[in-house]
């Protein structure tokens, strides 16, 4: 943990650090002679606060997606799309097909009739197996599989 300071520029907290896995980032802060210098730290607390707010919103959307899938109103593809912060348009670009097709695949009736090739394409994108998709398993989003090599 870096040194705490009452100065607005360097005010940091454990909470701000926790959301970015303790990543030490650089910001510019004036030293005692007024010269702006690079200072490393775990981030400014208000930034951590608003970042957490954004993630709470994403988690809320993921929870709603889970509920829609559980209620049978959407296919598991809908969950994977929301969990990976994609829109229909972005998913269409990634899976190289028309947004209209993606929209159809979000409906359980059409999703259950998807070809193996298309399932494989979606599975590769979301880093799960085609069987996971076929069974309707809701695996964590891509960013949970993060590795740290330092």
């Amino acid at each position: 943990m870096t040194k705490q300071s009452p100065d607005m520029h360097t005010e940091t907290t454990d909470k701000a650090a926790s959301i970015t896995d303790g990543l030490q980032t650089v910001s510019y802060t004036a030293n005692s002679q007024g010269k702006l210098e690079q200072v490393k730290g775990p981030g400014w607390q208000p930034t951590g606060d608003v970042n957490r707010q954004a993630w709470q919103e994403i988690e809320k959307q993921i929870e709603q997606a889970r509920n829609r899938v559980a209620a049978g109103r959407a296919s598991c593809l809908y969950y994977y799309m929301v969990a990976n912060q994609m829109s229909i348009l972005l998913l269409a670009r990634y899976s190289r097909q028309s947004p209209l097709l993606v929209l159809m695949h979000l409906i359980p009736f059409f999703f259950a009739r998807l070809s193996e090739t298309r399932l494989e394409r979606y599975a590769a994108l979301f880093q799960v197996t085609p069987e996971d998709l076929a069974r309707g398993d809701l695996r964590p989003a891509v960013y949970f599989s993060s590795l740290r090599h330092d």
Partner: protein
Amino acid sequence: MTEALRIDFRHRQSAHCESGVTANLLNHRDIDISEAMAFGIGAGLFFGYFPFIRINRLPLVTYRAAAGGLLKRFSRLPGFNLTRRTFSSAGEAMAELDATLARNIPVGLQTGVFWLPYFPKALRFHFNAHNLVVYGKQGNDYLISDPVFPEPVLCPASDLARARFASGALAPRGKMYYFDQVDRDFDRERAIIEGIGSVCTMMLKSMFPLIGVKGIRFLAGRLGRWPERLGHDRAALHLGHVVRMQEEIGTGGGGFRFIYAAFLQESGLLLGDQSLRTCASTLQAAGDRWREFAAMAARICKQRPKPGDTYEAAADHIRQCAAIEMQTFNSLQDWSRGKR
């Protein structure tokens, strides 16, 4: 395991990815340049509020110039040449990366951050204009100098290929670049004057009310009315989004105002010019005011406001930023015109 390749490249952490990559690539070519100086010469500072462009259903607010603009300005300096390539297939793009590394050239890449596994989860958004330098390969992993990280990182080839071909806004299409020609004794004074002149034009002379100082005032006008127009929840999300764009990793704090002030300070020293140092102080004051706004906004978003924390008060802070920036950039414009 194939043999390891490691180019002798000095990794220096920086606040902003594009200025960091530019400075590190130039340092590799024996041009001693700081990140702040690269940001200033590359005219990285900007302001734009574009409510008709949406990111995750929230309006685009930017405190920096368009992605790639900084490198482009450097490539146009006399004596400099930047080789840039985009690709239609990942296989071709990765093969070209390997071939360039084999020639002992560190390679700059534009990537999406969502697919980079070494990024903390909280920062993995679909943002496609991140810059990094690849300078080696160990087996199937690339050795990467990512300027916003304290140390070099390793990234598996498959993830890097995915990040290079991220889709969506600002899709990188495998973009890679490196300086194949540089002028070690380039005219820094001219480059500084032109960089400052360009930023002043964008901040003061734009025809569009959404850009520069006018844009800051426009944002203030809109922001003050968000609670009535959007309702409490959506307004808080909009407000938090503005703060994230201003203070998130890569900005150096205060919506890039502190890094630009550092550039003005350094230029003032280099050119022995007191007026630049005075402008640095006023821009730093603008950065402080942006931070006061951010701190108030974060309290509102957290639903823990202090007395006097309102959207209207937050908008007033932004108006004060606009006033200080107007004064600073007018002085800088007079200065740069006097030097031309």
